[in-house]
């Protein structure tokens, strides 16, 4: 049995290479068709995300399997990328290493953001697609189903996926949702048009935020953001009015001196009343004077440093769980490989037993036809012969099982085939 993965990921290849080697959803059927036509005996699963492109191969028999070079050529031909540009970035793992690699990938131990949850869905999707394309088989089915189980074990038995690690998710989940119960009745104000504002806005709209006001010195950029989230652009001159209306303020202008000082915000609070206001100052330098957070009980102001500190704490907490997660992966890899090796010896054991029991059956039939008076004790005689066969077969089969714990015992299996004339 052969298991292999040829891959490049964010550790080995830069984004430029990964972009060129990635398979889009539309390209997948064509890729599978080509792989199947070149290696009809192999099973395939292709996992392609923005951080990794991995081709898993498995083969029950020891026939010709795709080599590292052949798969590298496949990448080069399929994507029309010169081989020398990425050959060194393309890595290979085989046998238990390949299994361990997939288990680590599915458990998000190999992700750019440790413990991120999307990878499990991506692995699941890749496996489902391989099944739809009839590219997977018994080995890859076992492998991927086990990988998804391992990912679940790691998620539930460790704290690897606990705590958020991106600025926007920490801002909304750890702080925003601690202040407000819901966002669909809140007014969100975006000041500035930075990338961070757009990302935070995505989280807010996911939480149900509907009313979004966008204001920026440059109206064009504000319109672009407003268009993406269905917001309304307000002139920058109406900033004070907007601040008073808003329940959530996301600011990313980075103006110097701060855009909103204590006095200005005091005037805003006089207009808005004492309602709770959640301010995310994601700008560097800060847009809101820090003293604003002590203005009253209902002002909750967070700057980028506050959010980054929480992200870092969560990252540290996650990294402390890596050892426990790796232990689970290691145990599961051993278990999977052991099952796989036993599976490889199964047909030999079956044939050996069939051969012996067949011979016993023939001999007994001959015996009873020549000595009919023995027929009254037939059951007892048959049982004795069966026990004799079992006793004779026990030592070689025990050795085979022991050997299979360490790997597929090809040498022993061949010896058994030759010694006992076991033919396919």
């Amino acid at each position: 049995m052969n298991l292999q993965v040829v891959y490049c990921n964010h550790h080995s290849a830069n984004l430029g290479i990964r972009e060129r080697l990635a398979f889009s959803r539309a390209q997948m059927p064509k890729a599978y068709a080509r792989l199947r036509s070149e290696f009809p005996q192999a099973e395939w699963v292709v996992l392609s995300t923005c951080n990794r492109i991995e081709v898993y191969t498995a083969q029950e028999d020891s026939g010709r399997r795709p080599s590292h070079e052949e798969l590298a050529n496949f990448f080069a031909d399929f994507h029309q990328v010169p081989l020398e540009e990425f050959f060194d970035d393309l890595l290979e793992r085989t046998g238990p290493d390949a299994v361990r690699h997939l288990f680590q990938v599915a458990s998000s131990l190999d992700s750019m953001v440790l413990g991120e949850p999307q990878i499990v869905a991506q692995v699941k999707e890749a496996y489902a697609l391989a099944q739809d394309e009839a590219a997977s088989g018994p080995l890859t089915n076992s492998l991927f189903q086990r990988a998804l189980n391992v990912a679940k074990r790691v998620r539930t038995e460790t704290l690897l996926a606990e705590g958020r690690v991106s600025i926007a998710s920490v801002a909304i989940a750890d702080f925003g949702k601690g202040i407000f119960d819901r966002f669909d009745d809140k007014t969100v104000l975006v000041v500035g048009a930075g990338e961070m504002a757009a990302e935070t806005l995505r989280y807010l709209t996911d939480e149900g935020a509907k009313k979004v006001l966008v204001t920026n010195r440059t109206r064009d950029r504000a319109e672009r953001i407003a268009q993406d989230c269905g917001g309304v652009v307000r002139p920058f001159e109406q900033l004070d009015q907007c601040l008073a209306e808003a329940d959530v303020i996301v600011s990313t202008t980075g103006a110097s001196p701060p855009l909103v000082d204590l006095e200005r915000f005091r005037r805003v609070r006089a207009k808005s009343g004492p309602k709770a206001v959640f301010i995310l100052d994601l700008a560097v330098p800060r847009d809101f004077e820090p003293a604003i957070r002590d203005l009253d009980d209902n002002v909750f102001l967070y700057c980028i440093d506050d959010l980054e500190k929480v992200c870092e704490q969560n990252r540290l907490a996650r990294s402390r769980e890596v050892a426990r997660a790796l232990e689970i992966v290691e145990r599961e890899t051993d278990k999977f490989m052991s099952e796989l090796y036993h599976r490889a010896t199964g047909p030999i054991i079956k044939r050996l037993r069939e051969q012996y029991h067949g011979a016993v059956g023939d001999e007994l039939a001959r015996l009873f036809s020549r000595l009919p008076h023995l027929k009254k004790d037939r059951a007892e005689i048959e049982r004795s012969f069966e026990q004799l066969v079992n006793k004779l077969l026990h030592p070689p089969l025990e050795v085979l099982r022991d050997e299979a714990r360490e790997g597929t015992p090809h040498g022993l299996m061949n010896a058994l085939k030759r010694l006992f004339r076991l033919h396919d």
Partner: protein
Amino acid sequence: MLHVTIFCFLASYLVAFALELGRLLGRSRASRFVMIGFGLAGFAAHTIYLLNRSQQTHLPPLLASTHDWMLVLAWVLALSYLFLTLVQKELAIGLFALPIVLALVASAYFLNHEPNTVMNAERARRHWGMLHASFLVFGLTSAACGFLSGLMYLVQHHRLKTRHAEHMGLKMPSLARLAQANRWSVMLAFLLLTLGFASGVFLAVAPLGGTPSVNLSDRAVVISGVVWCLWAVLFAWLLTHRAPTGRQVAWLTISGCGFLLLTFVGLQVITGSIHSNSQILPAGGQAFEVEHDG
């Protein structure tokens, strides 16, 4: 009926609380199941104990004795805790609710176990007494909920103001929800306590087949009246104050509810019972003998 003692459910609640504390260090599905298991076991033992007592005294637990009444209050709070814990698996309700349950059960141990013979004697008085005790128990439960939501509000507010991440084992509802719970608890508690107080006064002055069981100049009745007046002031402030902040409401609720709970529980412990010094024997002059399990 099973022989259950106060210690059985006190110990179960205590273990559930210890497990809840342990969840601050690390959460696991197993620890949650064990924690809920101990909570449910404690609740079951608590229920059996109250049923046993009811059979022995021939009175509903609310009327049987001050000891039983206090245990009913703890029982309602334990039920609320279990319901919320089962529905909201992320929230650390037990960390706040279980200490109050434990305190009530522990204080019940020291209270008067003697059955209230007055209630057993007269049917009309018994109905009014039931109404009076029910209003008080549910009023105090609302007050305890107000106290807990106020406490959680302040902890959550402090976390958000000091910009700390949410602790894994200390997840709490949002400030908006806590403020809402706070306000409703105070209003409901005031309404129920008013009805409880009114029915108590009625019970004291109405000629329901015998001599009134409570003297209106009794120290406990006077203190209860004063507490009710303070609550009326808190209620009026909540209704009339223009947009108080959640934190102000939380502080007031904690003070009001805490004072109320302490006064009621303290009064019971100090005096044995509001009605303890004015018991009347039933017509037959026969008091009930009750086996004390605690």
